[in-house]
């Protein structure tokens, strides 16, 4: 017996229903604003929906890793359906800027944002900022023992104690900033020192926070908001953020960005969208929901976060981060960390 007739009927029904359901959606028209978003859906999805309903604009959103989406836009070239690119960090944007694939954000929008957090050539504007921090386990590390500078982590006393995510874009931005502020030699020696210290490497920021919470590694270099998300579900976790004092390069601020693509045929709608993303409501949303630093003057940071202008973060022109990233990844890979 090769299965009963009813068996075949069930199989065929399952296939038919599922295929029909899958083929039904996916109609789009030319008046749709297409957004490629390297920013997480969980955070900005609701915001984008709000834009779609308030501006009465149809939107299509493609989520993905910022670097993968940049690669995709580059592959698509002039025929890219994307009108706007939202990126986790300026690194991937710099890649597209070099290929000449980005349009200029209007002056009026750029002016809303502190000049540290927008491109000199106007090819991207920062929406919110995240800070690099040292996350540590309070049961394994005494706050008093924490170093005054990220540069001290190459000391032998931190052997195997600091988790790093060398393939992560924010880590790479941080190394680029270190090259700018301290010079290539210092940056190279720091990377080699971290390798010599056998610093464990992880896949990404979340893996580091998780490893620190479990006590597998006592501390790690991450972006500040991962620990807030982690603590929300694990109130008992002994993970705390430590911000390097003064204007240490270890406490770099990194902007998430918005850019309009040069190939867009909906410049006006794209700019309206960027304006919406910089609005007071949107900026409050990044602060309240994502624990991120708002970049326009109008909005304060969320409870528990210091206000942006009180932060003594290093004065780096983030604009240069993207362009220096190629040399940075080469340096990281030559150090043996990658």
């Amino acid at each position, binding site marked *: 017996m*090769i*299965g009963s007739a009813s068996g075949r009927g069930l199989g065929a029904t*399952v296939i038919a229903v599922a295929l029909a359901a899958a083929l039904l959606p996916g109609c789009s028209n030319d008046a749709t604003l297409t957004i490629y978003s390297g920013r997480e859906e969980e955070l900005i999805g609701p915001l984008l929906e709000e834009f779609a309903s308030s501006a009465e604009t149809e939107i299509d959103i493609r989520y993905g890793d910022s670097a993968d989406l940049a690669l995709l836009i580059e592959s*698509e070239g002039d025929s890219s359906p994307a009108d706007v690119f939202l990126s986790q960090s300026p690194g991937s944007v710099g890649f597209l800027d070099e290929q000449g694939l980005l349009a200029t954000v209007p002056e009026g929008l750029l002016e809303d944002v502190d000049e540290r957090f927008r491109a000199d050539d106007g090819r991207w504007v920062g929406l919110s900022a995240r800070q690099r921090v040292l996350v540590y386990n309070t049961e394994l590390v005494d706050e008093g023992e924490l170093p005054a500078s990220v540069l001290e982590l190459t000391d032998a006393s931190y052997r195997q104690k600091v988790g790093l995510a060398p393939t992560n874009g924010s880590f790479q931005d941080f190394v680029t900033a270190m090259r700018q502020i301290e010079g290539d030699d210092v940056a190279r020696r720091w990377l080699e020192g971290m390798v010599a210290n056998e610093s464990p490497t992880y896949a990404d920021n979340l893996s580091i926070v998780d490893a620190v919470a479990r006590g*597998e590694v006592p501390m790690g270099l991450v972006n500040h908001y991962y620990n807030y998300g982690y603590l929300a*579900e694990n109130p008992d976790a002994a993970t705390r953020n430590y911000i390097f004092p003064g204007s240490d390069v270890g406490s770099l601020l990194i902007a998430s960005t918005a850019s309009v693509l040069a190939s867009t045929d909906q410049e006006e709608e794209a700019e309206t969208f960027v304006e919406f993303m910089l609005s007071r409501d949107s900026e409050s949303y990044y602060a309240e929901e994502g624990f991120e630093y708002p970049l326009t003057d109008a909005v304060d940071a969320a409870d528990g976060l210091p206000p942006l202008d009180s932060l003594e973060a290093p004065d780096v022109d983030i604009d240069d981060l993207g362009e220096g990233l190629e040399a940075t*990844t080469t340096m990281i*890979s030559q150090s043996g960390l990658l």
Partner: protein
Amino acid sequence: MAFSRGRREVSGPWGLRLAAGSVVALFSIPFGYLLVQNASEADTFWRTISAPEALAPLGWSLLLAVAVSIAATVLGTGAAWITTRTDVPGRRLWRILLPLPLVIPSFIGAFVFLTAFAPGGLLETMLAPLGVERLRPFHGFWGSFFVLTLFTYPYVFLPAAARLAQLPSSLEESARLLGTSSYKTFWRVVLPQSRGAIGAGTLLVFLYSISDFGVVQLMRYDTLTRVIYATRLFDRSTSLALSLQLGLLAVAVVVLERFVARGTLRADLRRTQRPLQLSLRGLLKPAAFAAIVALVTAALIVPIAVLLWWSLRGLRAGTMTAGELLTEMADLTGPVLNTSGAALAAALAAVAVVLPVAYLSVRHRSHLAGGANAVIVGGFALPGLVVALSFVFWVLSAPGLGFLYQTLPLLVLAYVVHFGAQSLRTAQVAVAGIPRNVEDAARSLGADRWRRLVRVDLPLMRPALLSGAGIVLLSTMKELPATLILAPAGFQTLAMKIWSATQSAIFVNASLASLMLILLSGFLTWALVIRGTTVAR
């Protein structure tokens, strides 16, 4: 002329060759892309793949893939034999549960195992009262080996179980009548007759392991895929050169495998009323039962338990209320339908597409079939991102194809090219298993080629083809990188949901979508594969 090898007509009918030729063209999409991209810098290609920085990761990749292949083959074959040929309790349930680990995406699966077994993880917490201070580190080679083995043994289990379930019992009965012990019968009679099916699964495990990125990235094990990933944006030439190297390596392995496995495809798939079933005596029965329970526990129950724990933790911490939980579940309806629809379409299309190649390679001597075999299998070894970008490249650069871009048919086509290899070998086993005398009888009764295919061949091949389709189905359901690039706008799958939740460290959402994925795959495997491959008892 009328006997065995003489039946392999030299090149095959033109219709079949044309079909196989089109299949080769389709499956050449990723390789063509990599060749075009690498062609402009041929000397860079050679320099890159021979550089010490690339050779070491290649070595690590091979070491891991070989080790995982061996372990997964032993586990998959053993589990298949126990659940199809013995009277171990709960056989039907085990046959549904055993393939399911294949559906857990590696980026969440590896995280689950880290939560369970890494230092400071759940196991350590549970063992603490027993005086266990610290568990061994759980990463690197052994971590990757453990997780990959548990997630890939179904590649062997599915074809092996399909084969064992319908192996003619006559030889085994003879062997036993002649006084051969069951142990010897297994090694001398059962195993040789199942070699083709098992080997097909082993090859898939190998290819999956060298192309995996999610597990090795989280386990911090330095493979070729990690270099391809790390260099993808700012060192394109390295990334593209190493991708091509990975593909060529797969092709080399296929050629080698075909050489070694020559002749193992010939098998008689006539169905018996029931396959010979061994009744386990004494301690063997509890031992076999314990082995299956241990495997299902490690590969499926542990991940499910961790996922449930994540959900409960989220509920307890108040990041999600019970009401929100229900809304969240309801929101999964769309992704559930999308995932099933796309995966079913890909599974059926993959089987249909590789079938002409299977006929050509089994029944005829054809270089075309050899080439088809190589490109089809090569597509599985390439990272999903590369396969996706190759489709972007060709569809947007070939005139008149642009309308297909980011549509569902194109996504399904990309799945077929990426995973077609998973149904190829089972299709070959299926074609080889059609007894020629049955075909001859149909022919002498005047049935034409199509009629013979529909009325004779397909019913006979059904179990083997379905097991191949089942593997494609499970792999497609968890696919992420190509889906993110090629899915139609607004088209969400469960894997995309899981990924986006992990991006924001929202474990509770990630776990709900993961549990849904496992549940759905269990249902689909049961409805479409198990029911079709099980001999009625």
